[in-house]
């Protein structure tokens, strides 16, 4: 590829939005409009002829490099097929507090854990394990969180009542730890949120 095409490729890759031709020209003061157009053609042809997973398209008010539509499904499916990732202790502790104290606000959870849980609550929300169930009283009417049906499903619980009461915890914990993943009768999580 010629040097200008490489520069354009790098810029298109790094840009968070489509870049109009006029802005692409600003990348190299020496380059004529014709040279920029030729470099864009070269880049587009290169992606097409060489068989790349991406393509150069002119839409949304400018040029952008996009993945080809035929790979979208595989990338989305991969999410489900991926090896499950063990949640951090911090995430589990936060989830545990929400499960036992719902409805509960961020401030209260943060106070119990001794550290701000804003980011963790956000990721639990994104995972669909908790949701906003109400707004609290008082100043600012804080959001209150509770667990979702998906939470029950992923822990193989029929109802929240099936969680052991706090005074029964010791008994529940004395069960063998091995059963935690993938065995019949034990809760297993699979599949993305």
């Amino acid at each position, binding site marked *: 590829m010629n040097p200008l095409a490489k520069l354009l490729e790098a810029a298109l*890759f*790094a*840009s*968070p939005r489509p870049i109009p031709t006029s802005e692409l020209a600003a990348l190299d003061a020496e380059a004529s409009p014709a040279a920029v157009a030729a470099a864009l053609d070269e880049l587009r042809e290169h992606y097409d002829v060489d068989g790349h997973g991406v393509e150069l398209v002119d839409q949304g008010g400018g040029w*952008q*490099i*996009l*993945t080809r*539509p035929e*790979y*979208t499904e595989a*990338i*989305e499916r991969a*999410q*489900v097929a*991926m*090896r*499950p*990732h*063990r*949640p951090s*202790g911090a995430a*589990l*502790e936060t*989830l*545990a*507090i929400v*499960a*036992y104290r719902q409805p509960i606000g961020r401030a209260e959870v943060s*106070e*119990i*854990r*001794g550290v701000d849980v804003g980011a963790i609550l956000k990721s639990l929300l994104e*995972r669909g394990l908790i949701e906003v169930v109400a707004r609290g*009283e*008082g*100043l600012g009417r804080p959001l209150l969180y509770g667990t979702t049906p998906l939470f029950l499903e*992923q822990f*193989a*619980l029929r109802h929240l009542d099936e*969680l*052991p009461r*706090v005074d029964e*915890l*010791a008994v*529940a*914990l004395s*069960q063998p*730890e091995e*059963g*935690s*993943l993938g065995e019949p009768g*034990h*809760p*297993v*999580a*699979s*599949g*993305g*949120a």
Partner: protein
Amino acid sequence: MTGLRVADTGDAFVVELGAFNGPLDLLLSLIRDEKIDVYDIPMARICEQFLARMHELALNAAAEYLEMAARLLRIKTLMLLPRHEGDDGWEDPRAELVRRLLEYQQVREIVDVLERMGEDRRNRFARAWFPALVAPPQAPLALSLVELLAAVDRVLRVSREPGLHDVVPRPLDVDGAIAIVRAVLALRASARWRDVVREDAEPWEVLSALLALLEMARRSELKLAQPRPFADVEILRESAGQAA
């Protein structure tokens, strides 16, 4: 003076941030400038230099530098104490300082490595464009009930301290307090704090009343005035036409 960046405000702390990362940093730079052997620091000279630089950089108010200055002076004093020839039990009062300086020097060396590697990375851009269709893959979570319960147990053990589980804080009742204030102001054009809060009010009632007054002032339902410093606050009914 040195080529330090001094802020227009003359704020001592800004100078410090631009120049040194802390008292150990300052000390290390003195040792380097004066070509001193770290294992045999002349305490009197380094003390003098340290205090001079602190003064020069207007660091006299920074607690961390003051603490280091005090430490240096103490070591200097200990060095002056007479010791007997062949005294095996003598411990160099500088030993701890030397250890900390060497440890800090290691940190600075690692910082150089990180700085170089971070610079390399900052010279490259990652993909910034998110096509709407394709979300970057995110692995599912492996959740187990036993682990969740273990987390509950951990939380309980950690937070058993001052009553986090026994005390249910009484929620504030701002709406209730607003109703009380409205009732009082319906009867009279001005009121005092004691008119809207009982003598034996509980903390949550006091807080509710305070928030109610602030909220109502914000909504221009009333006006709060204090004729002179430390005088009682007057709660004045705001006529509807005056609302801002």
